């Protein structure tokens, strides 16, 4: 191993989207991602899964990472490769990820007893996407990477 950075995929195409941290704008990310996925040839049911996952990830970034501060941005990077679409969603990290929340599987009986019926987003994303990874964004905020494979 030389330790050098691997060469970029020559057919990689990147679309970058910067949104205000305001609920409702996740719709813009959903529509952008679905437009790219359709162009790449994803089946309609996979496009719907992608839209749901993107919506959950951007909503988390707005609500938790950026704590609803509309002046903060959510950055969505869509990377189209030959056999997959990678979606990175990054916030500005006012509130860091709770690692336990990223691996917890909600128990429906417990959730039904709580006033707040939320907390399903990350579980849902893991169910819908082929790969999910949590990390720190280059900007220092929270980042989630979701990968969806193109089935031939």
């Amino acid at each position, binding site marked *: 191993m030389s330790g050098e950075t691997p060469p970029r995929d020559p057919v990689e195409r990147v679309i970058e989207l910067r*949104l205000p941290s*305001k609920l409702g704008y996740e719709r*813009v990310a959903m529509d952008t991602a679905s*437009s790219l996925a359709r162009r790449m040839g994803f089946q309609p049911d996979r496009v719907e899964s992608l839209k749901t996952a993107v919506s959950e990830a951007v909503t988390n970034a707005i609500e938790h990472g950026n704590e609803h501060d509309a002046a903060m941005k959510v950055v969505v990077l869509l990377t189209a490769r030959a056999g997959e679409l990678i979606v990175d969603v990054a916030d500005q990290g006012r509130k860091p990820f709770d690692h336990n929340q990223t691996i917890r599987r909600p128990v429906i009986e417990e959730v039904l007893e709580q006033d707040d019926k939320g907390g399903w987003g990350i579980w849902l994303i893991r169910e819908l996407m082929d790969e999910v990874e949590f990390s720190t964004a280059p900007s220092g905020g929270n980042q989630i990477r979701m990968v969806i494979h193109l089935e031939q």
Partner: protein
Amino acid sequence: MNTPACSPASLELSLPSELGYEVIARDAVAAFACRLGIPAERIEDLKTVLCEACINAMEHGNSLDPGLRVQIFCRIEAERLVVEVLDQGVSRYTAAPTPLSIGEKVAGQGSARGMGLLLISQLCDEAGFVTRSGPGNCFRFAFHRQPGHCSSGDR
């Protein structure tokens, strides 16, 4: 002045300079405009204008080099939605001294292409290239908002 009390909302988008990707930009900006309460028929005009502006940036400004980028900045102001489309300026825009009319083009007096800017001018309320300090061309267009069109999302 009696204008809606809307706070600024903005969207930034960067995409490869490759024909076909203008459709992704179209869908992103349409979703943004929809969120802002722009009427549906105006959003259709916006989509056409945006595609034309992006294709111009890709074909002319960036000379169809897929390694270059097209950037789109959208912002909402009290009375209008403003969109700027920027290329990296491989080729600088120069206005034709006397642009041909559609009638003249149809009559074969010039290329049938090159009607994008004419179409844009018919569909939006303001349009034109603006000067900027850095390299590249910046094409700006705007759609005026009707009074009261300020959805809860952009207050």
